[in-house]
């Protein structure tokens, strides 16, 4: 190792490079954070699957399939919000403040609709004596759906904060970088929702379809 030397220019990056690297690191850190979060959802869904074989005295599969129309509506809203966020991304890339704010607001409203349906549905179930304390299956259902809903609510708060920042300070590099991370978070929540629908609702729907076909 005789060629080890230090030179003046090594490692000394310009301030612009350094700022860019710092942003890269933040995106990377958030990705890792989301992976950790994905493990939480994976474990919750695994618990749900175990519980669904063991509904005991609580209402089992039946009341959960009642939620089908709402689930479809929620899925449409959330997928649409993912699309509006993507359009907002185009506006951000073009540094168009007005359109950015408009599309972010659309995303917010769609997300708000998603949450409103979810709250009314969970409230309705609890009122119909199918609340989280009724059975292990319902505990798991309320927790996995509720955890996702909490994440979406945090995302909504985040959108409000960034809409405020963009409106007040404009699309400066810091705001753009924050928006890109918010986008990662938002699309991640859509992926989680698809997993929830696939594991919580789909098997029942298929079962019903099967029994309807046979009956």
């Amino acid at each position, binding site marked *: 190792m005789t060629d080890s030397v*230090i030179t003046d220019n090594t*490692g000394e990056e310009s301030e612009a490079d350094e700022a860019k690297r710092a942003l890269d690191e933040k995106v990377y850190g958030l990705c890792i*954070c989301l992976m950790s979060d994905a493990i939480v959802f994976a474990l919750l869904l695994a618990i749900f699957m175990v519980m669904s074989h063991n509904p005991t005295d609580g209402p089992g599969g039946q009341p959960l399939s009642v939620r089908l129309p709402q689930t479809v509506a929620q899925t449409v809203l959330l997928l649409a919000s993912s699309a509006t966020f993507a359009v907002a991304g185009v506006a951000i890339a073009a540094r168009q403040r007005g359109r950015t704010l408009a599309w972010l607001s659309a995303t917010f409203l769609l997300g708000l609709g998603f949450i409103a349906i979810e709250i009314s549905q969970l409230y309705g179930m609890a009122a119909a004596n199918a609340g989280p304390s009724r059975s292990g299956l319902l505990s798991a259902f309320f927790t996995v759906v509720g955890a996702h809903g909490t994440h979406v609510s945090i995302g909504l708060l985040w959108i409000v904060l960034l809409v405020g920042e963009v409106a007040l300070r404009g699309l400066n590099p810091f705001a753009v970088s924050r928006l890109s991370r918010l986008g990662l978070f938002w699309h991640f929540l859509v992926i989680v929702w698809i997993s929830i629908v696939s594991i919580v609702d789909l098997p029942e729907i298929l079962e019903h379809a099967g029994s309807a076909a046979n009956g």
Partner: protein
Amino acid sequence: MFGKLTIDALPFYSGIAMGGALTVVFGALGGVAIITWLGQWRCLWTEWLTSLDHKKIGIMYVALALVMLLRGFVDAMMMRTQQAVALDSNGYLPTDHFDQILTSHATIMVFFVAMPFLIGLFNVVVPQQIGARDVAFPFMNAVSLWLTASGAALVMTSLVIGRFSAAGWSAYPPYSEAQFSPGVGVDYWIWAILLSGIGSILTGINFVVTILKRRAPGMRLLTVPMFSWAALCTSILMLFAFPALILAAALLGLDRHVGMHFFTEGGGGNMRNYVSLFWMWGHPEIYILLLPAFGIYSEVVATFSGKGLFAYESLVYAIAGVAVLSAMVWLHHFFTMGAGHDVNAFFGRVAPLVAVPTGVMIFDWLFTMYRGRVQFSVPVLFTLGFIVTFVMGGLTGVLLTLAPAYVMHDTTFLVAHFHNMMIPGALFGYLAGYQYWFPKVFGFRLEEKWGRRAFWAWIVGFYLAFVPLYILGFMGMPQHLERYYVAGWQPYLIVAEFGAVSILCGITCLAIQLAVSIRDRAALAVSSGDPWNGRTLEWATASPPAPYNFAVVPRVHGIDAWWAMKQAGTAGYRPARFQEIIIPAASSAGVVLGAMSFVFAFAMIWQIWWLAAIGGLGICAAVLLQTFHDHAEHRIAASEVEAMETRRATAAALAPGVAM
């Protein structure tokens, strides 16, 4: 107004509990009094509590670990004493109190001694070792520290206000459910786990990004020093494992307070889910604690043998292999739950495989020492003590992973085995690291004589305390007994008590060593900055390091970069002109967030809702203030950098017996 909190929460019911409470209260008041008397509040706040410097955060982590080690050890001593005397009698501890001590001992040792100790060492060493000026997310680093400190504060508070959990450190339901543990004890446990667990995940994110993104130019992954490799594998395990623990604790809380049925006996609950979740974290956690120690042993062995590590790449693959294996064998912690033959058979076959990469590491260390000029300094003593003793722990571990060996599960054999992993395995490594990097941090070495005494007291104490427990396990003594009726067990338990006394001597020697070293710091000073003739980049910085670590970021061409620079004569390199360096500015948001999370958790435990609201809003305010503060940086002018580097060079030149 105060929720469940009444005057009955104070420990007037027991003299021993009152003694513990008063010790905590007077200890805290004493600390406040000393700081006031020294007039150091301002310095403490500006230089330490609000600091985002990774070295200072590391020092605070290690200080937290050492303070909590005392508390955890007192618990251990109380249990050993109870077991030594409680033949055919009640001893001096009521059952509930013994169970609380059992729970707090393990909770403290894992979450508030081992974790902060290893994370503290990461903080001090890793950025310097990979040639970085800072961690990737300095503020998040402070948040991790203060969340962990809040968790520790909760456990200490439970000694004064209310009681701690008596459900064991694993808090298995159904006993930990509200039906059987209606008090606040399990809630203290849950919140301490949640706070420190979130802190650990944030640390994991921080160090994965730091090590993958901030290495010095030219440092490929297969030239990263072993301790930093261990830190990388550990951080990945933290990200993988801690979500499971946080989820287990949170769902248990939902069961207790929202009436859910995740783990309850009735209502369709399934306690096996809890056990699985807990060990999905618990088994990787063992390697989260061990891998950093393996990294430290690697550094110590190479440095004090004056040789490069034998088969460095095999060590890297071994440590990564252990990390991967550790994530897929959790079920061997509950073979006795009865998962069925096929499941037990799979886990029983996979679990012992971990012995293979571990064996590779042991041989690599031995071959590194072979034909080296080994200096038997204190870190080396701890390393040798580890190698010899750990083999025993590894073999007993293989015995436990063999599914049919039911006879040893849930006996003191298990207690002895995991202490064999945790004391000579993990803690000896941390102590070796503490001795090895102390001069790096403070600029003077720790005194050798008291260090040797500490080592001998620790290792003799370990054998005396835990070999009897291995034997008792074969004799069938269950773990966690607070009293017993088998006369044949008592002699072994008395020997184990002597072992605990010897470990107490070890701790005392460490305290004396620290005091003596501070007194003689002028004689022990290491003005060259490189007291051990080190090999890796952390010795390239000043000791203690400048706030920016490296005035000029080094270019790396292979492993042992600092050794190579010394060989090439480029170690003392000084550029013609220095450049301005940006470091993060101090921020009070981290410590405020920690304090507010303590308030929040305390309020949730006692169901004081208005206080919980204050705590929650405080947490949000601290996070938002910091994240929307875009220019939170401090610039060190080039002239200032130059002045600091000149002072360092002068001090090194004037030092007698310079190594380089």
